[in-house]
């Protein structure tokens, strides 16, 4: 069973330390326990959403904000650059 680490109870993502495949059950370790069913493949080192998160909501890891959901995230979904936006160094969003 692939393993995923939760670093803080406030986190809505966990980091996989094995490769996870769609449909597999993933064991949560660290600051949370339990299992989560992966909705899609999540590569080694990538994150899985562990709590449904609406679009625009904060994404937390280490208990800290690492960005915002650019679309709604379902628990079990691969959470990465395609659905999380950075809020820092965004010159592209600055009015010029």
């Amino acid at each position: 069973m692939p393993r995923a680490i939760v670093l803080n109870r406030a986190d809505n993502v966990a980091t996989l330390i094995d490769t996870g495949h769609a449909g597999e059950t993933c064991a949560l370790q660290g600051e949370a326990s339990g299992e989560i069913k992966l909705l899609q493949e999540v590569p080694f080192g990538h994150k899985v959403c562990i709590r449904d998160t609406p679009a625009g909501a904060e994404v937390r890891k280490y208990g800290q904000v690492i960005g915002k959901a650019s679309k709604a995230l379902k628990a079990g979904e691969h959470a990465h650059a395609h659905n999380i936006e950075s809020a820092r160094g965004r010159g592209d969003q600055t009015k010029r």
Partner: protein
Amino acid sequence: MAHTFLGYPRENGTFGVRNWVAVMSIMDNCNPVTRAICQQVDGTIAVTTLFVRGQYGRDLEIAYNTLAGMGRNPNIAAVLLVGLEEQTTEEVARRIRESGKPVEAIHLQPHGTINCVAEGSRKALKLVVRASGARRKPCPTSALMVGVECGGSDTTSGLTCNPVIGQMSDRLVDDGGTVIISETSEFFGAEHLFAARALSPAVGKAFTEMVLRLEKEAMSQGIDIRGTNPTPDNMRGGLTTIEEKALGAMAKAGTRPLSGVLSYGEAPAGKGLHFLDAPAPAVENLTAFAAAGCQLIFFGTGVGNPIGNMVSPTVKVSGNVNTLRTMADNIDFDASDILEKQASVRAIGDKLYDFAIEVASGTRTSSEILDVRETAISRFAPTI
């Protein structure tokens, strides 16, 4: 109990972990002669540089101070400067002489390449004979200054190698030593946590200003920095945003208070944890550590970055089982037991501190043995 390592006491009260003669270029057109001398003379290291000619103002001061800082580094027993002409060479020479170590120089004008390589090799030979008379003696660990860096990061970096380096940093600070963390852009999103650790409000403010100034500069380009930092390999390794990368990168600095902040080319005045305002890419960052006087560098890596520094031996630490298999030749310390065997960060960090003392006492790193080393001084302005 006072901890010690076996090192080389220097004239000015510092302690080296290596005993090299540095052959150092004053500017880029000197590099071929520098390399030729080092090929001829065992016991030397080549400290090359790009540009310098045509640089001016603050940028030129940074270049001179960084070259001189590397020359003053306690790992260097003596320096042979390779210059184009005497006036520019003297700018660097006088700054190194403050340390009391032997400084010699040769010049391309008017002697030319072949004569310079011959004369330089003879001078380097004498310096190496003299340096080789030094013997390692017990030195206090409080004299150690280490730089902490990460490169080729992925999500294992923030879980394994960086917190392990952080535990080693805490141990060294507690022993009275000095730790420098850098990579200004890799505090975007974590700066509030680090600023809260400042010993004084002035230090915290200076640190935050350095981070925000760089972010403002980057944003003035009108682009999303994602793709540059985090890099494409960071993102393949699972890092999604600069905030996530920063929170993991900061773990290298452990938990002790922030004592002071430094500019590129500057050295700390006191002990404890310092922040150095320098660009994140490894080569130019490690160069700033060497110029600050770091005798050792600890470099956490996830997906793998082999590069080390010329002057300051660079210990590669990884906790990514895949990288430890595919890039084993480039990794000095394995931190994978944290994820694979649920070992504690503290236990592995304590082992890394023991390894630090070994490397300080003479155990060689992979990047030294394979000569996977490079020097680059950051530039902040155009040449004219």
